[in-house]
């Protein structure tokens, strides 16, 4: 057992941090967010050059074969500086979904383009009434001639506005909550008949609500095999959930550190804030939450990597292991979400009136943390998911 990063990983983190510190200082945030998509186009090219966009993909698709640990490093650094970009949407959601579910030719076609920064994608999975349940899909795709007829609506499609391709989860068979019968389709956002409502999100990004009304799409828009999307979707969302936990963890550490600095410099009643014991003990709680949350991120990340290895060796039944991995993902998403929320609120409170001001990062961290909690399931949802699995294993234990 060891928790040491490899030398490569340390260098990778250093390069990311240096790049972001230089090109993405908080002072420029307001200006940067004025770009219609919340980020400047040149950023994307830089990320491609730095290797982020090819990071998790297999070498046969021009990827770098990075592990979940590597993705975590990127996301932690993103969290520290509040980077707004379609990295998650393109690489960790859509790209990974293509890698998991796509046909060989689709992978060969799309993944190298993603890695090279030539293609941005968005994943349309959530619906107005779906809550955080991935199987709840009422958008239907009905076979018709040499294609499908799409009806329904998706909400909160992150970065659809800047995407070249939107991947839509639609139901080709089964009832509205079935895990069976889900399929993936790639859509061109500029195609006729697509009704897209774009909006900005509270954390500086963009998202869209999309309505499909009798939209015809050709067979070749199908990604992977028909009706088999759910397990891939589930796995990719689990991976992306852990990535979001890493991002939240990065933000938590930043809040903790910035609060520490504020405590040492801000004077009230002739003393540094940090000399007040009630505040000291509360910052210690914040610090402990950062550590404990970090631990659950590591736990989930290592489980993902171990699962990948197991899956590749592919002997024996992986269902049980998959469930254990999902449980670790939920543990992290629950605890990190809860702790990040509390750390964010304490961070604002520690900064007093300044904590409310837009020119300090502290409130922006809180907004991002809140949005992370509203993505792929909030703490309540994941506690329930964890609990249900736990109860199942108590029952089946002898």
């Amino acid at each position, binding site marked *: 057992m060891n928790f040491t990063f490899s030398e490569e990983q340390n260098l990778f983190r250093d390069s990311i941090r240096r790049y972001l510190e230089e090109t993405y200082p908080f002072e420029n945030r307001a200006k940067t967010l004025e770009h219609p998509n919340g980020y400047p186009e040149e950023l994307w090219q830089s990320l491609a050059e730095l290797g982020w966009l090819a990071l998790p993909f297999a070498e046969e698709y021009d990827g770098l074969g990075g592990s979940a640990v590597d993705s975590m490093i990127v996301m932690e650094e993103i969290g520290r500086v509040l980077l707004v970009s379609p990295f998650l949407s393109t690489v960790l959601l859509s790209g990974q979904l293509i890698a998991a579910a796509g046909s060989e030719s689709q992978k060969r076609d799309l993944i190298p383009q993603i890695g090279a920064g030539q293609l941005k994608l968005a994943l349309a999975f959530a619906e107005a*009434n779906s809550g955080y349940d991935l199987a709840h899909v009422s958008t239907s795709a009905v076979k018709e001639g040499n294609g499908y007829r799409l009806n329904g609506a998706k909400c909160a499609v992150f970065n659809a506005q800047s995407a070249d391709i939107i991947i839509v989860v639609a139901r080709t068979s089964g009832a509205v909550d079935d895990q069976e019968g889900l399929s993936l389709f790639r859509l061109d956002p500029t195609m006729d008949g697509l009704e897209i409502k774009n909006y900005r999100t509270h954390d500086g990004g963009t998202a869209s609500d999309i309505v499909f009304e009798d939209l015809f799409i050709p067979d070749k828009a199908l990604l992977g095999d028909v009706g088999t999307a759910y397990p891939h979707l589930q796995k990719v969302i689990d991976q992306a959930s852990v990535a979001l936990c890493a991002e939240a963890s990065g933000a938590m550490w930043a809040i903790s550190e910035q609060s520490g600095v504020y405590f040492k410099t801000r004077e009230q009643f002739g003393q540094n804030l940090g000399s007040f014991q009630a505040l000291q003990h509360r910052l210690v709680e914040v610090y402990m939450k950062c550590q404990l949350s970090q631990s659950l991120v590591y736990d989930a990340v290592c489980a993902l990597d171990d699962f990948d290895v197991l899956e590749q060796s592919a002997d024996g039944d992986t269902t049980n292991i998959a469930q254990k991995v999902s449980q670790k993902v939920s543990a992290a998403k629950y605890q990190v979400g809860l702790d990040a929320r509390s750390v964010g609120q304490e961070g604002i409170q520690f900064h007093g009136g300044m904590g409310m001001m837009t020119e300090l990062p502290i409130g922006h961290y809180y907004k991002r943390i809140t*949005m992370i909690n509203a993505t792929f399931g909030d703490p309540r949802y994941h506690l329930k998911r964890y609990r249900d699995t736990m109860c199942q294993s108590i029952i089946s234990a002898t």
Partner: protein
Amino acid sequence: MDMKFDAQAEGFRAEVRSFVESNLPDDIRAKVSEEEMILPRDMMQRWHHELFKQGWGCPSWPVEHGGAGWSDEEHYLFEREIALADAPRPIPYGVVMLAPCLMEYGSKAQQEKFLPGILTGDQLWCQGFSEPNAGSDLASLKCRAERDGDHYVINGSKTWTSDAHVADWMFGLFRTDSSGRKQQGITFLMIDMKSEGVTISPLENFEGTHEVNQVFFDNVRVSVDNRVGAENEGWGVAKYLLGLERFGTAEVGRSLASLGRLKTLAKTVKVGSGTLLNDSDFMNEVARAEIALRALEVTEQRFLFGPGGSESMGAEASMLKVRGTEIQQDILELAHQALGYHAHAMIDVASPENDHNPAAIAKAHYNFRKTSIYAGSNEIQKTIIAKAVLGL
């Protein structure tokens, strides 16, 4: 012990309720129901004018100044009904704070000059207390007022000043002497916001609203006629002022209205084949909030209508502010959580059958983080309780 209001009080409650129902403009109600605390000048004045016509503009004032002569119960029920109906809060700085100070410490001339405009609502005020380096530690304020004949010349700045951008006048605390204890040497002055040398610089909250300002003073001349109390004795005036608020610091009425919206939301938000009402984990939290709010409500009532009445309420009132803001924040946060993926949107993305606006809910959640900071942070309030109530 009797927790019911008597028939007379209930009659008064009904009268207020029906008045508000008939007279509160829809646009104002809509703004307040989205948890907006700081309204445009126009809205503040339109609503105040309705109240003024009814004789309820400044009900807490002595009758001779235009007050309503109500009992504690009537005041309580008035504020409750106002809040439940999503009417604006009373205009804080002029009506609730400055006017009673002028009645206590002001000259006859000052009273005649200012009270009528405050009563009608034509004149709006802001409060110049906090400074960049004097927040919780208010007495360490540094903004200088130097005597020059029958004027003070003010230099420095005030910050987190709510309403400065809509106000005609500011009252505030200024440093006239730095030689003694920091509570000494502070003077209470009233400043015309149109004076030369006053610059208002808006401050933006992290969720994008503009509610507070930094106000800069560059050789602003203020006549000694606009001083309340003696020179260097402004701290006493300020303490009087800060002790005035007996009703409403708990904001129970507002929170009841917010909680009502939260319950409607739970009933409205569809999750799978049901609504959030089927999510027992979520509803546990709503129940928790409702019970906490009820405990706060009764506690406030006990303080107001216990032995000794509202006059006997001391530092205990600080707990109303602490728990009141915690509960506000809790309810608004739950509402934001209820939205699921709609929580992200900065525009109204709700489906037409829902009458909630996700963007406004999110904004309220973020913006209300301030309530545990402003008006004496909750940490300061706890220290007050520790010292004044627990004797530590």
